[in-house]
């Protein structure tokens, strides 16, 4: 197959043969497995930690809240923390996506479609693993409604993909100015305590409430709580603003995936 390389692109000419398509599928599988293997490493429980992590962190906060005698529902905390951690992790993965555009294969260039395919599959599995354990606990221990569980799993997928999309848009800037990673970490830390991750929006008032109305995370977490029959302000929030946030986030994920080819090419000479 002919490959043309210029400063603008590195692309193959002509249609991909069935063999090339099969090779791409095998490469996606390889990259995906490699990513999960790197995550599980030598850990005895391996990927089970991805399921356990949001549960353990939620339990820690439940303990803290019991010490503080704060009256926040357990389901509210589980949902808030799981969704916030997904947001946080996906955003960071998106920002770091630029680090390895080889797919781990060092002797040959991998097509961009392979990288995008493996990224989408990874995100979907990661979202599921991080929300599945909590969903199971909500269903079995707290007798949550099935519609609430399904909504929670769908919102987890949505929030994971959308956050990664935002991260991917920030990635080129973070590569040029790595300080941005520190700034984003501080913002995320502030948002964790200031956004309705640990408490329902109804527990806030005044400027705190107003600021959270401008935070996209609020809309997702409050929607999940609403379907789980928990305290939720979603019906009192401006749905037009929610629509606007969804539009911006979807646009950013489309842009994020569509710039990968250009970005991976441009990054090759940056150090």
């Amino acid at each position, binding site marked *: 197959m002919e490959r043309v390389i*210029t400063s603008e692109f590195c692309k193959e000419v002509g249609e991909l043969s069935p063999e090339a398509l099969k090779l791409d599928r095998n490469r996606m*599988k390889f990259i995906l497995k490699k990513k999960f293997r790197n995550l599980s490493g030598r850990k005895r429980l391996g990927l089970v930690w991805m399921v356990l992590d949001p549960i353990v962190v939620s339990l820690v906060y439940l303990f803290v809240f019991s010490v503080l005698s704060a009256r926040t529902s357990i389901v509210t905390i589980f949902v808030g923390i799981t969704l916030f951690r997904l947001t946080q992790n996906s955003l960071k993965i998106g920002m770091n996506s630029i680090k390895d555009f080889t797919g781990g294969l060092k002797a040959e260039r991998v097509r961009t479609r392979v990288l995008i395919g493996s990224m989408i599959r990874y995100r979907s599995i990661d979202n599921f693993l991080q929300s599945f354990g909590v969903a199971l606990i909500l269903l079995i221990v707290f007798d949550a409604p099935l519609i609430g569980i399904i909504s929670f799993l769908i919102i987890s997928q949505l929030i994971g993909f959308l956050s990664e999309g935002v991260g991917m848009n920030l990635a080129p800037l973070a590569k040029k100015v790595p300080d941005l990673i520190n700034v984003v970490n501080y913002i995320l830390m502030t948002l964790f305590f200031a956004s309705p991750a640990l408490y329902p929006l109804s527990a806030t008032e005044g400027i705190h409430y107003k600021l959270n109305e401008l935070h996209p995370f609020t809309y997702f977490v409050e929607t999940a709580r609403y379907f789980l029959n928990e305290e939720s302000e979603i019906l009192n929030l401006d749905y037009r603003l929610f629509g606007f946030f969804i539009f911006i986030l979807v646009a950013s994920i489309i842009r994020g995936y569509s710039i990968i080819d250009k970005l991976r090419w441009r990054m090759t000479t*940056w150090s």
Partner: protein
Amino acid sequence: MVLENSEADEKITKSTVIEISDFCVDYHMFKRSRKKPLGEFEEYNALKKIDINISDGEIVALLGRNGAGKSTLLRCIAGLLRPSKGKLVTNGRVILLAGADPGFIAQLSGRQNVIELALAYGISENELPDFIESIEKFADIGEAFDRKLSGYSTGMRGKVGFGFITALKPDILLMDETLGVGDREFRKKASKRLNEFIKRSGTVIISTHSLGLARDICTRGIVLDKGGIVIDSNAEEAISYYINMTEKS
């Protein structure tokens, strides 16, 4: 390293498989200075105005001092580096042999690595048993082949990695100063395998400091200096030029 006699000369030149025109590469490096304490990106010119056409079946030696731009050029041909100007067209599957790690996963055994990587490098399931056997036989690391790669020494890793890459079938093979691993016995074995690999590959570009290797197997020589081509001729002439150039300095 001196390879055995090659039949490369007998290869019939068919068509151009690598076409490089007006090709420049600039690296962008972050630099902090007293005047600019927050730092800035500086451009560093690595290749300038390269024009090369390489035909099917040619074995080209790429010669030059350290930092002349040999590795940069190979990485560009492999599609791993972006030029700042110019155009490069390759025709066929390009494999870059730089080091001896095709992308190993430390948590897997040598055998598992070979199986998973083989599929990712386009080896079909029918070819897989022979492919594994050839690498196992070449690496000759006994029962360690079924042990986790994280427990391998650098030499053992290199043997499996080198065995793996040289078992592939590229149309265009790019070699960047390979064969730095293993003991004397292994190097001898590796030379033989490398020779077979070169014969099997359609077109080969070797970046090397080994003039013996260049003289023995290459049909053409290109000398790079400070990012530009200083001579593009037959292997013997290019080698003489390179020797003169390095002796003068």
